[in-house]
């Protein structure tokens, strides 16, 4: 230590002169060291460039060798060229210069210098590769991606490794693991190691691996684990240690439990998504049925009209405001509400008003209206489904965990529905219009006596109910097909929600819709969609036995139906 410091002790200039020989010696060593390092990197760079260059070789064997070499060198800078090769975007010019094309193939850049090149000036050849080259290509890309600076790429690479395990990865993964900071990626690395660890001869290592798999593994591991429990032809277990076998069994059940839990969460989410759509569809129906005792068979068509309004707005934006395309949805919401609301009001004024007190006739008359509406839409827009595209902010989804993707459009719909329900609830409970609506719902005669214009209220309520259904159509357009018969698909379910949830309280409709949505989704994997529907119907009939007025209906001495 002391000597080291003495070496670096500042000396007067004079003393330097004295140690010139030493200094020169040191300087020489220094230069030599620098030159070596430099030459190494130059050599390395050269090696890298050489290998990269060889990707364009005419011989497939050389290409394979080059790929493996790049993999061994471990330089992530090779990735663009390798990925281009995989994606058939790598070209070689006559001078042997490697060119990487962009996605649409109209621009290219030099693989080494990254400079743009003029494609038209060059004569380009495609490198010939076959499946065996592709295999090496894939695993090398995977290896290099593990070292990428982008955590998303690292995660994806790690998961790829997990799926296609090949030996010799262990050191690579251990190296990457040591550098890895993200917990999520570390987990995957552990699993890769564990998968290899199961093949180890050391029993302790196998047990350790099992512990990790038990904690983090998913369904993909079941095969591997079950192979540990297999017997050979003589009936003996391949895995001789019972402790290992037991742990394997525990790991399997742990994985199954976890998977079950995840599946149920996914079902819950999709059930809520379905329920939220049902809610929008049924809310309008509950309002009009509660108010007027009218079951509007054309209610489904209000949904359909809302969806088609969205379609029209989408097209308008596409044609006239393409830069603002993503905003079409914002414009579609009030449009659908108004269009459906107006159609509803027209229905009420022209037909339904005259059939007050005769619910069965109203049912038939509104069915007739629905036929007319469907046929009109068919004649205008055609009988086929029309395309409504998700705006960009609703495409894709978030990866929740372990293969469960929650699409953005469904999440948005759930939020939207909550918002609408709160709005409607506030309107009904807090506004003066809402007060009048509730009064007429509970006792029409009395409400009229205290001066409420029941006709006007009927009109507004019907408009509101139809408008809400129109909003439901907007939501539907984002997750499903839009065709003239859209309404027919949802009308039966909407009815079921109203029957089950009761009429007169929004809570009932919410409970009914969510309940049915979730129930449907949970029954689907068990019984299939059709049997699920039948079971739901039977269930509703059973519930009605106990509570004929539905789960949340208004109690009291109502007029005898």
């Amino acid at each position: 230590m002391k000597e080291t410091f003495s070496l670096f002790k500042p000396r007067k200039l004079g003393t330097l002169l004295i140690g010139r020989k030493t200094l020169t010696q040191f300087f020489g060593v220094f230069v030599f060291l620098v030159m070596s390092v430099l030459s190494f990197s130059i050599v390395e760079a050269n090696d890298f460039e050489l290998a990269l260059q060889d990707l364009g070789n005419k011989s497939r064997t050389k290409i394979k060798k080059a790929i493996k070499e790049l993999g061994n060198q471990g330089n992530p800078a090779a990735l663009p060229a390798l990925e281009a090769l995989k994606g058939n975007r790598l070209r070689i010019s006559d001078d042997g210069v490697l060119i990487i094309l962009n996605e649409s193939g109209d621009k290219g850049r030099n693989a080494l210098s990254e400079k743009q090149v003029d494609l038209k000036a060059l004569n380009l050849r495609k490198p010939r590769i076959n499946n065996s080259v592709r295999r090496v290509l894939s695993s090398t890309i995977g290896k290099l991606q593990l070292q990428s600076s982008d955590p998303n790429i690292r995660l994806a690479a790690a998961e790829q490794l997990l799926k296609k395990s090949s030996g010799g990865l262990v050191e690579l993964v251990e190296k990457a693991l040591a550098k890895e900071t993200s917990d999520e990626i570390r987990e995957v690395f552990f699993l890769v190691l564990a998968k290899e660890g199961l093949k180890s001869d050391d029993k302790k290592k196998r047990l350790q691996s099992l512990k990790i798999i038990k904690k983090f593994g998913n369904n993909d591991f079941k095969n591997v684990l079950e192979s540990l429990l297999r017997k050979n032809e003589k009936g003996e277990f391949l895995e001789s240690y019972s402790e290992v076998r037991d742990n394997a069994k525990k790991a399997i059940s742990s994985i199954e439990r976890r998977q079950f839990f995840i599946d149920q969460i996914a079902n819950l989410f999709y059930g809520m998504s379905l329920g939220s759509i049902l809610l929008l569809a049924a809310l309008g129906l509950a309002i009009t049925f509660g108010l007027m005792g009218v079951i509007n068979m054309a209610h489904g068509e209000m949904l359909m009209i809302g969806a088609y309004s969205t379609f029209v707005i989408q097209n308008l934006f596409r044609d006239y405001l393409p830069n603002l395309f993503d905003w079409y949805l914002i414009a579609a919401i009030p449009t659908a509400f108004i269009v459906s609301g107006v159609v509803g009001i027209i229905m009420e004024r022209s037909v339904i008003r005259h059939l007050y007190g005769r619910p069965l006739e109203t049912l038939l008359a509104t069915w007739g209206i629905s036929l007319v509406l469907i046929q009109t839409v068919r004649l205008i827009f055609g009988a086929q489904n029309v395309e409504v595209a998700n705006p960009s902010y609703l495409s894709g989804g978030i990866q929740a965990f372990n293969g469960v993707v929650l699409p953005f459009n469904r999440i948005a719909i759930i939020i939207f529905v909550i918002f609408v329900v709160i709005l409607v609830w506030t309107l009904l409970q807090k506004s003066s219009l809402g007060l009048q609506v509730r009064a007429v719902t509970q006792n029409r005669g009395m409400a009229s006596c205290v001066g409420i214009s029941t006709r006007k209220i009927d009109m507004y309520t019907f408009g509101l109910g139809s408008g809400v259904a129109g909003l439901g159509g907007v939501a539907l357009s984002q997750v499903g097909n839009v065709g003239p018969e859209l309404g027919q698909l949802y009308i039966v379910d909407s009815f079921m929600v109203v029957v089950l949830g009761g009429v007169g309280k929004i809570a009932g409709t919410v409970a009914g819709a969510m309940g049915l949505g979730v129930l449907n989704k949970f029954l689907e994997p068990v019984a299939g969609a059709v049997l699920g529907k039948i079971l739901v119907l039977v269930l509703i009939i059973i519930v009605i036995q106990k509570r004929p007025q539905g789960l949340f209906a208004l109690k009291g001495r109502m007029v005898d139906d």
Partner: protein
Amino acid sequence: MTNPEAQIKDVSVDTSHGCILYIEGLTVSFDGFKALNDLNLYIDEGELRCIIGPNGAGKTTMMDVITGKTRPDKGTVFFGQNHDLSKMTEYEISHAGIGRKFQKPTVFLNHTVFENLELALKAEKNVWTSLTKSLSGEQKDLIEKDLETIGLTEQMNLRAGLLSHGQKQWLEIGMLLVQDPKLLLIDEPVAGMTHQETERTAELLASLAGKHSVVVVEHEMDFIRSIANRVTVLHEGSVLAEGKMEDVQEDPKVMEVYLGS
């Protein structure tokens, strides 16, 4: 379900204690509102009791409970000693011998007066006999007698929808009589009737007492005075006062709540 055979057999009511209707501690609430609140009421066999009270006092709800339309939350309702009304269906109660006339006349508008009575007539009422049996001579006579009692002999073949309001009320009473019930529950029989019609109704009801037990709900004070023996005043779901008409009228509690003068 009740044995259909038993429907026509005399479902005898045990009135050995003299009381035909026991209501004890009856409580019925609708969505938090107490329509009946610990109601106690006893009707003797053969008496004619009038129930009065302001709107919302619980009169119709009480009838609903007796006839099985509404189930009580608490309390007991017994017809005689042996029929627990809270456990019987409407038609079983009707067979046991309780008949009810509703506030709004609920005759069958599309049937003739005769047919209305034919339907109400005490007889076997199951599906098969309805399909196969026609009216016997005896039964026809009973109906015709009843028509005389209610004064609608001329309108025998007229569709009930075409009757006047008062006539509809009588038809309904006639339907009640022809059922030959032991206990009649009559909800506002003279609402909308002329003075003469009211008098006739009073006579009719008064003549029924003794052979039948009658409970009448009404607002028309003169009518009640002319028929009533004992009067029960209901208020907010329970009994406010009970006794002879004169006594009840003088009761300060009653005056404060209802009569005013």
